[in-house]
């Protein structure tokens, strides 16, 4: 029982990063009704860019690395928008989807090329802190990951519901044409969505690097899949859904890893997804069908 609680809580704390990746997918889908498959790769790419700071100024604090990853993620997000969505006609979703796949391969290969495929160490904060309650422990670095992720989500929700940009974003996601008629520049809102999700992705990538301890290009594919699963379980386009589903998938995965081993773990996560597809295809919080 203690093992179960321990692995579940570790998983839920780590699941906060899945939630961030899931939000990135879901937000772009909500606004543009398109899938950005390059997102997880761009997030990991952002985290790598954060490491450049250590290269330039050796001994830079972990905080600086995270901040660098945050900014680099935003820049990469804008680049993905420019290369995969800006010039491709809206009426052609397949081309945009394929272009994001090309971008995924490109970012992946740039990382492999620059690091020779060797995993790099990633700095962490509070990794020597352990909160103990009897035999039950909470790892300090995982707690930090959880708190940072939650702060980012709160920031995103504030942006969406308290600012003019957020208002415009929500308007575009409801009815792009109507929003355009009201004088909202849809293209700019789309680009800003990519920048915002990119910022979130960069910090998510950094948090994953910090909690795993290393960063490797092998992370991109599983992260893409986990992020998409989180998006579906939470309901496409739903931000609270993505948060809850992210924590759920994190906990579920960690518990199964404890009891069934690391090679079978992901198989059960896929099964969880199929259970949702069959019994609740809209996900936990399916947004009500809008007019189109």
């Amino acid at each position, binding site marked *: 029982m203690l093992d179960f609680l321990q692995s579940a809580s570790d998983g839920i704390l780590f699941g906060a990063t899945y939630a961030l990746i899931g939000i990135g997918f879901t937000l772009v889908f909500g606004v543009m009704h398109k899938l950005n498959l390059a997102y997880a790769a761009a997030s990991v790419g952002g985290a790598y860019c954060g490491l450049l700071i250590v290269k330039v100024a050796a001994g830079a604090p972990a905080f600086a690395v995270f901040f660098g990853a945050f900014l680099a993620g935003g820049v990469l997000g804008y680049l993905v928008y420019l290369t995969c969505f800006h010039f491709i006609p809206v009426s052609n979703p397949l*081309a945009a989807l394929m272009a994001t796949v*090309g971008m995924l391969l490109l970012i992946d290969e740039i990382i492999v090329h620059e690091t020779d495929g060797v995993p790099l160490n990633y700095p962490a904060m509070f990794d020597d802190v352990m909160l103990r309650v009897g035999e039950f422990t909470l790892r300090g670095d995982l707690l930090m990951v959880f708190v940072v992720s939650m702060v980012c989500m709160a920031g995103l929700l504030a942006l969406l519901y308290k600012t003019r940009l957020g208002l415009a974003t929500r308007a575009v996601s409801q009815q792009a044409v109507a929003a355009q008629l009201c004088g909202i520049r849809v293209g700019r809102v789309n680009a800003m969505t990519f920048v915002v999700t990119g910022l979130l992705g960069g910090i998510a990538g950094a948090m994953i690097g910090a909690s795993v301890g290393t960063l490797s290009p092998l992370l991109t594919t599983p992260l893409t899949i986990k992020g*998409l699963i989180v998006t579906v379980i939470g309901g496409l386009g739903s931000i609270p859904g993505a948060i809850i589903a992210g924590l759920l998938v994190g906990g579920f995965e960690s518990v199964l890893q404890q009891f069934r081993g690391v090679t*079978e773990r992901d198989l059960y996560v896929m099964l969880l997804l199929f259970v949702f597809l069959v019994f609740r295809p809209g996900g936990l919080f399916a947004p009500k069908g809008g007019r189109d």
Partner: protein
Amino acid sequence: MDFYFGLAQIIGVHTLLGLSAYIVLLTGQVSLAQAGFFAVGAYVAGMLTVLAGWAILPALAVSSLFGGAVACAVGFPALRVKGLMLVIATLAFGEAVRLFFFNFDYQVAKGGVKLGPVGGEGFRQIRYFPEHGWTTMEVMLFIWGFVILAMALLWWFDRSRYGAVLRAVGEDELAAQSVGINLTAVKVSAMTVGGMIAGLGGGIYAHYTTHIEHASFGILLATFALAYPILGGLESVFGTVVAVVFVQGLLVEGLRFLGDWRNLLFGALIVLAMNVRPKGFLDAPALLWIGRIFRGRRGAA
């Protein structure tokens, strides 16, 4: 010369994979599960020839049927969801298949050697072609026989009522439904045909490489399967072939002299191709232009 025959084998098998995604794309469904059906076909055909001692043709027939059956079974739950949800569902299915074979052990001792798939190590010694003394050229012709068969089938579909129905569903589901088309039947049947072609391709793949492992059937292969018809264009089956030759012949083999940089260019070229030709290489105007060349000026008038 054997090098070019080998390349032609790769192109042939990838064409089958691309065609399996092509027919599903015609109905407007984006399926990343084709690599999964391909893997099922590869393992089934390999086990039949190696462990059960079957001949190649019945083994390929069974692997094709198996791929179709799995695709049909996946089609029903997966097609409850639409559009981008389907991308994710099929992506997860493909990964689930790969992870299944990662954990799959089934070994039989034959003549003192243990044969059969072993989890992470994969399935070695699928040596039907070498054992029966087929040359590289014969294998290549064998593969292309199936490719031409599959292309002819899809080309004929395109000119039949069934092809029109497929495209109608792809263009506008609501309109198709309101003229009395059964959406589920059309989508699941397209998925099944796609699964059969992928299963066949997988069976052939297992025999020409002689060694299959779970890692070859990952998300990369699934995106390749999808990339061929999208890069080539959905107007004609020939688009898929053109795209396979472009990717496997030009990008993978032709750019080998670039060494490390080849992989970098690969992703960038896909991005570029989609920006410049969003409807694929062989889009409607391009086909019209080619048709004019073949028919001469009278045909154009």
